[in-house]
């Protein structure tokens, strides 16, 4: 019996869920959890909400205390980056040069914020993905009346805009598309959000960023030698004066360390329906692009709920594969299978939420990529609405803003498996008829 570990690469929500599930499902061998950030596993959704606002301090974001992690008996490698993976031998290379020969690997390295060329050398231009990012931006938002330009009007940009307005800053939200979050939720829900942002004093602009204006003298208040941002230039020639810029222009899967040709890393690490990228190699969370068995095509979600659920699924399926492998090598031995040790296709009902001002948006299923959206605005001023999303004649997603929880859960049931469009419309009507 070897003592090869299972290694989980990525110590955020998906990696932590995988590590915990590996123990819960019976892995008693060594378990290595590798995270490139120096922090214990923490929760990211509050970064653009409560943490940025200052309502919560970083300790509140910790997903587990050290005491809660202790029973997992982890070989916890924080501040450590995996730099390579040899698929055939399941060997990881770590940034210090160490080779880790593994029984199995779960890749949960997430995504990194996209940036613009040269932006990292301008003081006052930020991205928002990590705790350190959020704290840096929060530090710059101390006081009031800063001119903040947010580039990108997706979920992150919209949430940050809401927080910055609540803190009393002047906020301009610039998107390539005119309607915020339109890609994620459709134009009508997006327009409802736009109305709220405008009512709260956010300036909404359409345009592409062409460059940045900076001080020539490097008079950065933070004391570095970097030039300080003075304005954002748009392609149409507009100059937006800025004390501070947040680039919220999306993310790219953290797969650059995966060079083994046995892996497909086009838009994430490609997996089968079991979250397996190769024998003994699984993936979970924002980085994983897998064949969703219900929707019949490869999908990748940057959603908090998916991180946990997929972490657990990848752990279960990896253990099932390892058990089958062990049985194949020792066929005479009686099957020592823990209950439930069978690979299961990962078929979640996707879920995401967004908080902006007093609005909570909750969505189940697929809302992006719909070829048909039916939005019902229940109360324009209170921003209460629901929307049904269709694709190829089936209803595949639903969204609720300002609906009671019982109705939201009922809406989830409507699209848990794709229904014919008309039938789903009827069921949505029934689910939201009362109250």
């Amino acid at each position: 019996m070897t003592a090869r570990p299972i290694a989980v690469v990525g110590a955020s929500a998906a990696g932590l869920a995988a590590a915990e599930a590996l123990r819960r499902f019976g892995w008693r061998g060594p378990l290595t959890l590798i995270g490139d950030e120096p922090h214990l596993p923490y929760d990211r959704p509050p970064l653009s909400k409560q943490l940025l606002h200052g309502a919560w301090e970083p300790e509140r974001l910790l997903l587990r205390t050290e005491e809660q992690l202790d029973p997992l008996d982890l070989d916890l490698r924080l501040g450590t980056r995996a730099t390579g993976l040899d698929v055939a031998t399941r060997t990881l290379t770590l940034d210090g040069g160490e080779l880790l020969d593994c029984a199995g690997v779960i890749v949960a390295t997430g995504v990194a914020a996209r940036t613009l060329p040269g932006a990292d050398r301008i003081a006052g231009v930020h991205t928002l993905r990590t705790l350190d990012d959020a704290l840096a931006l929060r530090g710059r938002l101390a006081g009031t009346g800063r001119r903040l330009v947010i580039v990108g009007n997706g979920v992150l940009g919209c949430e940050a805009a809401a927080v910055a307005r609540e803190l009393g800053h002047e906020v301009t939200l610039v998107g390539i598309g005119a309607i915020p979050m339109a890609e994620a939720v459709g134009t009508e829900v997006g327009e409802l959000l736009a109305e709220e942002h405008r009512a709260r004093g956010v300036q909404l602009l359409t345009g592409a960023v062409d460059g940045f204006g900076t001080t020539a003298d490097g008079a950065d208040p933070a004391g570095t030698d970097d030039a300080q941002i003075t304005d954002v230039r748009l392609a149409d020639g507009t100059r937006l004066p800025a004390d501070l810029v947040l680039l919220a222009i999306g993310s790219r899967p953290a797969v650059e360390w995966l060079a083994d040709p046995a892996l497909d890393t086009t838009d994430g690490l490609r997996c089968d329906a079991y979250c397996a990228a190769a024998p003994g190699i699984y993936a979970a969370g924002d980085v994983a692009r897998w064949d969703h068995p219900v929707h019949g095509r490869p999908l990748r979600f940057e959603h908090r709920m998916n991180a946990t659920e997929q972490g657990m699924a990848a752990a279960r399926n990896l253990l099932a594969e390892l058990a089958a492998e062990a049985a194949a090598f020792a066929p005479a031995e009686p099957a020592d299978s823990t209950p439930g040790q069978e690979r299961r296709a990962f078929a979640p009902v996707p879920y995401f939420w967004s908080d902006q001002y007093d609005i909570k948006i909750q969505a189940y299923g697929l809302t992006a990529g719909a070829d048909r959206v039916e939005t019902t605005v229940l109360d324009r001023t209170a921003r209460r609405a629901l929307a049904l999303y269709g694709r190829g004649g089936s209803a595949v997603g639903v969204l609720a803003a300002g609906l009671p929880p019982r109705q939201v859960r009922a809406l989830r049931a409507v699209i848990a498996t794709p229904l014919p469009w008309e039938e789903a419309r009827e069921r949505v009507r029934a689910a939201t008829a009362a109250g």
Partner: protein
Amino acid sequence: MKITLDADKCCAAGQCVLIAPEVFDQRDEDGVVVLLDAEPPAEQHDAVREAAAICPAAVIEVHA
């Protein structure tokens, strides 16, 4: 088993109610979690552990 909640962190996803409806509920006004049974019977324990593991805001703590 004893359950405690850090309900201030709740993001109202409602997964706990889907998984263990006899133990958890949500407030009508904002969807924040409500604990129906802080010491649920044994047949609920698996569901409660699942709910705690899946909660996207790490609100639910299960004590042995």
